[in-house]
């Protein structure tokens, strides 16, 4: 009775060696593709949520993202991300009133300086024109839900929501 299981064992071991040979040519690519097709997405607390619409400004654009709400025990606030790009088309000082919710009324006024050196830390002031959004004074990049950072060719501002 040992013979069939032994044969099965050797067959499986032989197949393992064959599978090993196939990893760089077939399996690696296959599994990687399979993983991308699972429809997974990176947590929006990091990625900032999908784009809702883009506003055309004077030579540059302001992209508005969907509001992001923290999960479970995450102690971040809900926020909305706004992207100004391209950076080289921005004036030295930006002060834009942005209609975030698309109702035709400005909701926040965002003001920041655009330094020439991309490594210079950014600071932002946000005036809340709608009580749904929280004002910010001289904010840098302390929290995911409350920041201004430069990512490649864009300046990202995240404005927290008040929950009202």
């Amino acid at each position, binding site marked *: 009775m040992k013979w069939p299981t032994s044969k099965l064992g050797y067959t499986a071991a032989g197949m393992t060696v064959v599978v090993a040979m196939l990893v760089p040519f077939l399996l690696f690519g296959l599994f990687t593709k399979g993983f991308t097709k699972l429809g997974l997405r990176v947590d929006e607390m990091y990625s900032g949520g999908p784009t809702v619409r883009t506003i055309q400004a004077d030579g540059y654009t302001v992209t508005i993202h969907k509001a992001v709400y923290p999960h479970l*025990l995450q*102690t971040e606030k809900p926020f909305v991300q706004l992207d100004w790009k391209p950076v080289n088309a921005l004036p030295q000082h930006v002060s834009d009133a942005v209609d975030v919710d698309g109702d035709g009324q400005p909701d926040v006024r965002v003001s920041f300086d655009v330094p020439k050196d991309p490594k210079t830390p950014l600071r932002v002031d946000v005036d809340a024109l709608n009580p749904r959004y929280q004002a910010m004074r001289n904010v840098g990049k*302390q929290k995911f839900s409350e920041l201004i950072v430069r990512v490649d060719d864009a300046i990202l501002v995240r404005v927290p929501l008040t929950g009202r």
Partner: protein
Amino acid sequence: MGGPFLVGEAFLLGLASGPACVASCGPVVVPSLLAEGAGWRLNARYLSSFLGTRFLGYLLFAAIAWELGVLVSPPPAVRTLIYGGIHVLLGVALLWYARSIGRGCAHACAASGLVSIGRVGKRGVPGAAILGLLTGVSLCPPFVAAGLRAAQLSNLAAALLFFAVFFVATTLWFVPFVGMGCVRRNASVIFVARTAMILVALYYLLAGVAMLAGRRIYG
């Protein structure tokens, strides 16, 4: 608004929030449940005790919040202090619980009854009850969502009914945990569960102290 409609809304909200409740309570429930004795009856008793006191915690907080007129949205500074305090208490309770399991084993091998925090025997308080109460008052996000909805209702009785139905619906998601009674308990499983409980407790303690000290955990 009609009663049946209100009940239906609370039930659906509870069902939708259930996974979040399970995820939120998971770090407390899973290791402590694994550390208890095996068998679905004992595990069902644990869950009943845990969920019962969690419900009490919900109602207690809702009633106090209603009385104080702040409902479930206290100012952020106060909320951080409450969160921090409860995290510390939860951490201490988990550590105490992990310690009690060893003591319980020496006497009754944790097989005949739930692990007690405090004195061993009939006078001890079931650990599950304490953990349930503390998770109940810890303002988990689904609870806040239900609280905000309940706040719009006309009177306290309706708000409490809304909470009760909401709670029952979220509880359905906890029923599969009874199946953990089938996991065979041996010294290794108990050791793993106790150690996991200590790690979770240390996280809650650190998070709680940081919150009380006004420090951010994230960001």
